[in-house]
Structure formats: structure tokens, C-alpha cells
């Protein structure tokens, strides 16, 4: 079988939604691969060698050549192993999928990360930003490009489902850890319904870590960040503190979907 000779190695991190994207598509395509867990606070020489520019996970190694940036990796996999495609066939649909994947990482992801990295009034503003972004997606589901679809990809999950879905589980985690309401089923009924359908998929259930693990992870980092906030004197220094003092905060922000 071609799959066992695929020669794929994936460097990732268990809590990284970007890593989950790649793991999910490899699973959907039935591809075997070797997985290397990276400690993001102690990155391996291999990771730094294969991704010198960004030094981030995930990194896909195929035929000894590294491919980086999750959406680029997804497209590489889709173009190399063409069974069970994740990109639509029609050029306009492809442009739409690419656009919303871009939006997910350019706007929605960082907005969600900002909620995690803030408190008080700043957090309220960050939550409002997430809602604004979710509203845009909800509109497309209700009356726009994705009207009437079960998944963004149609009847089966496609690249946009994978990109949006792997990361959206943080919304429920953050809602619980920080007592915010990021995904209100009343305000975003279609997005909420889509997310539930996505998370019910067998392959997705096998990839996304148990919610308890995610909760524990998020709580730990949030506590540490808040501890740092108390130690700082002005709001202006808080932002600097959370990003420079420890890698962990940037780890969660990275995991949560910030660029």
C-alpha cells in the first residue's frame, strides 16, 4: 500500500490546533506518519533546522524535505495524495475556502488569543472582537457563500472545516476557564451547530485532545499569566510581560490560534 511507504514525519505539539489540522487531514487520507512531540519551551534542534524562519510547529517532513505553515502543509498533502480531497474542485469555491482560511488565521485566531491574554476591560473588548468575527462567519452560513451547507466543504469536511474546526474547541475551553461567552448558541446558531457536527466526526474525535486536558492546560497558563499581571505595575507593561517573561503564554496563544 502506498500509505505505509509515505515516508511522512510530523513535528507537532499536543495542544497546538495547527498541529491538529495536519493530524486530521493525514487521518482523513489514511496516511501513516511518524509523530514527534515538541516541547514548545524547549524546541528541538531538528525543529529549528527544518523551520529556521518561524521556528514553529507543525513541520511536515516528506522525502526529507520540510514543509511549514499549517495551511500550506494541508494543501501540500492534498496535492500529493489526491484521494479524499479537502480542497473543492471549482476555482471560485477554492478561492472562497482559501479566503476564509486566511480570515481564520488573520482575524479570528488572534482575536481568540487576545481574549486569553487579557483581563477586565481589555478582555471585554477582545470578546467583542471575537463576536464581530464570528458574526461574519455566521452571515456566510446563513445567507452567503455557505448557505444551507452541513459543512463548509459541503457534505463532508473540507479544508475550511479543518482550519476553523481545529481551534474552535478553544472557544468552549476559554468560556469555562475565564467565564466569558465566546460562542453563544443564540447569537451564532449556525456556527454553533456546525461546530457540534464537526466535533462529532469520528476522525475529529480521535484527534482533538480530551476537554479535561485542554481545560487543565488553559487554566494553568491563565493562572500563571494572571500572576504575572499582578506583579506588574501598569497596564502598558502587562502586555510586554506576558509575552516576554515566559514562553508558555505565547505557547497557548500559539495553540489557541494566534499568528
Amino acid at each position, binding site marked *: 500500500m502506498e500509505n505505509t511507504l509515505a515516508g511522512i514525519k510530523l513535528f507537532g505539539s499536543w495542544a497546538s490546533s495547527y498541529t491538529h489540522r495536519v493530524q486530521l487531514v493525514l487521518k482523513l487520507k489514511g496516511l501513516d506518519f511518524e509523530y514527534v512531540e515538541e516541547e514548545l519551551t524547549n524546541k528541538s534542534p531538528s525543529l529549528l533546522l527544518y523551520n529556521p524562519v518561524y521556528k514553529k510547529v507543525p513541520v511536515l517532513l516528506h522525502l526529507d524535505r520540510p514543509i511549514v*505553515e499549517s495551511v500550506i502543509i494541508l494543501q*501540500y498533502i492534498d496535492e500529493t495524495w489526491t484521494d479524499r480531497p479537502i480542497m473543492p474542485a471549482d476555482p*471560485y469555491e477554492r478561492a472562497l475556502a482559501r*479566503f476564509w482560511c486566511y480570515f481564520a488565521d488573520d482575524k479570528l485566531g488572534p482575536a481568540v488569543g487576545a481574549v486569553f491574554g487579557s483581563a477586565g476591560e481589555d478582555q471585554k473588548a477582545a470578546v467583542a472582537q471575537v463576536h464581530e468575527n464570528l458574526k461574519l462567519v455566521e452571515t456566510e452560513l446563513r445567507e452567503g457563500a455557505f448557505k444551507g451547507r452541513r459543512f463548509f466543504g459541503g457534505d463532508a469536511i473540507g479544508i475550511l472545516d479543518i482550519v476553523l474546526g481545529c481551534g474552535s474547541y478553544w472557544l468552549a475551553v476559554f468560556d469555562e476557564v475565564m467565564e466569558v461567552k465566546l460562542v453563544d448558541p443564540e447569537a451564532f446558531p449556525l456556527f454553533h451547530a456546525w461546530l457540534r457536527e464537526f466535533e462529532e466526526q469520528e476522525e475529529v474525535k480521535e484527534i482533538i485532545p480530551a476537554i479535561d486536558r485542554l481545560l487543565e492546560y488553559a487554566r494553568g497558563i491563565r493562572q500563571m499569566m494572571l500572576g504575572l499581571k499582578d506583579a506588574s505595575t501598569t497596564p502598558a507593561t502587562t502586555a510586554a510581560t506576558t509575552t516576554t517573561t515566559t514562553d508558555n503564554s505565547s505557547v497557548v496563544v500559539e495553540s489557541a490560534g494566534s499568528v
Partner: protein
Amino acid sequence: MAAVGGEEVKLLGAWPSPFVMRPRIALNLKGVGYEFLEEVFGVKSELLLKSNPVYKKIPVLIHAGKPICESMIIVQYIDEVWAAKGSAILPADPYDRALHRFWAVYIDDKWFPSLSGISRAQTEEAKAEAVEQVFAGLKLLEEAFEKCSKGKGFFGGDTIGYLDIALGCYLGWLKVTEKMTGIKFLDEEKTPLLVGWGERFCADDAVKGVMPETNKLMEFFKVLQAKFKAASAK
């Protein structure tokens, strides 16, 4: 202007924008005619707001009434719709495609922001750091050129490709920055391959008509800077 199947192609844009240049080059490579709708600087048209409600930015390609946004996404769309015309923009091999895509992301994410950061720098220190980052980036891109071009004239090989378009559109602004700072960024000694490539790119038929003259860009840039200064003085 009619294209495949007689469907209209329109492009919303503005002449100084490097992002707008990208789909224009792609359409030229494919020999596809289009109507260029120039946005008035500082005022977003109804059509723009309707076609790109998420970002409200140019360029927007409108093909058969349907809008496509984000410059490099538009370039891929053009490559796929008019695959039978002109030369291929993205390479055929998946790994080469990944390389082109990666460097295009790097250029937009990291390299161009450091270039535009030079003029926005508030301190000499910040300016020097931005300059260093631009040079460091060019060094990486020189290596990328060697890898992607495989001895040919462009990142895309014999013809202009995805990565050529991604980087080449910034050449006008690079020249403006060189004039303003007196620093030679594209230097024969440091990045000889990119120097040769830059000249070939600007001279190409698909690029010539849409690459703004450096002097015109300089004038425009001075107007922008004055507005920026006035706004921050308030």
C-alpha cells in the same frame, strides 16, 4: 471586457498599490482583458464595500459578478480559471508550490512590514533594526531564488511565477525606500541573483505597464507621509 465564456472581468484597485499589481500581472500573463476600476484614495467605493465587506481592501477581482479578495488568492484563482491560457503561475510540483506559497507568506508577513517599517520608524534605533531585517530577509530570498529558479531567470523558472509576483510587486516601493534612505538594498555584492531578477522582472511585458514609475511613487509617498504626520500631530 470579455474573457473566458464572455464573462466580464473587473479589478478594483489603485495604481500605487503593490497588492493590486499582483492580479494585474497575473491577468497579463494569461492575456486576459479586464476593466480596471480605480478607487479614489481615501474614499472606499460602494462597490468595494459590497465586494469585500470583511476587509474593505483592494484589490478585488470581480469575475462574472462574483468577488474574489486577497491578492495572492486572486492570483491563484486567475491561474486556475485560465489554466489553458498563457504560462502557468504556480509550479506543477506540490513541493515547489509549497515553497512558493511559504515565501509569499513570509514576504507579506515579515519582509514587507520591515521595509515599510523603515519610514514609519520613530527612532534611529528602530530604523536601523528595520533596515537590518530587510537585509536579512533579502539574504533568505536570495537563497530561495537559487533553490526555486533552478538556474533559470525567475522564481517560477522560465516565466514569471507566483513567488515572482509576490515579491516583484514591492520593487517600486523598495526603490522609493532606497532613494529616501540612501541605502542600496538590492546590492550586486550581497544579493546578485536578486539584482538580475529584479531587472528581468521589471522589464517583462506582463509587468512593464503596471509597475509605477519610481518618481510617481515618491510623490505619492510624500503625500502619504504628510497625511500621516498631520494625523499623528492631532
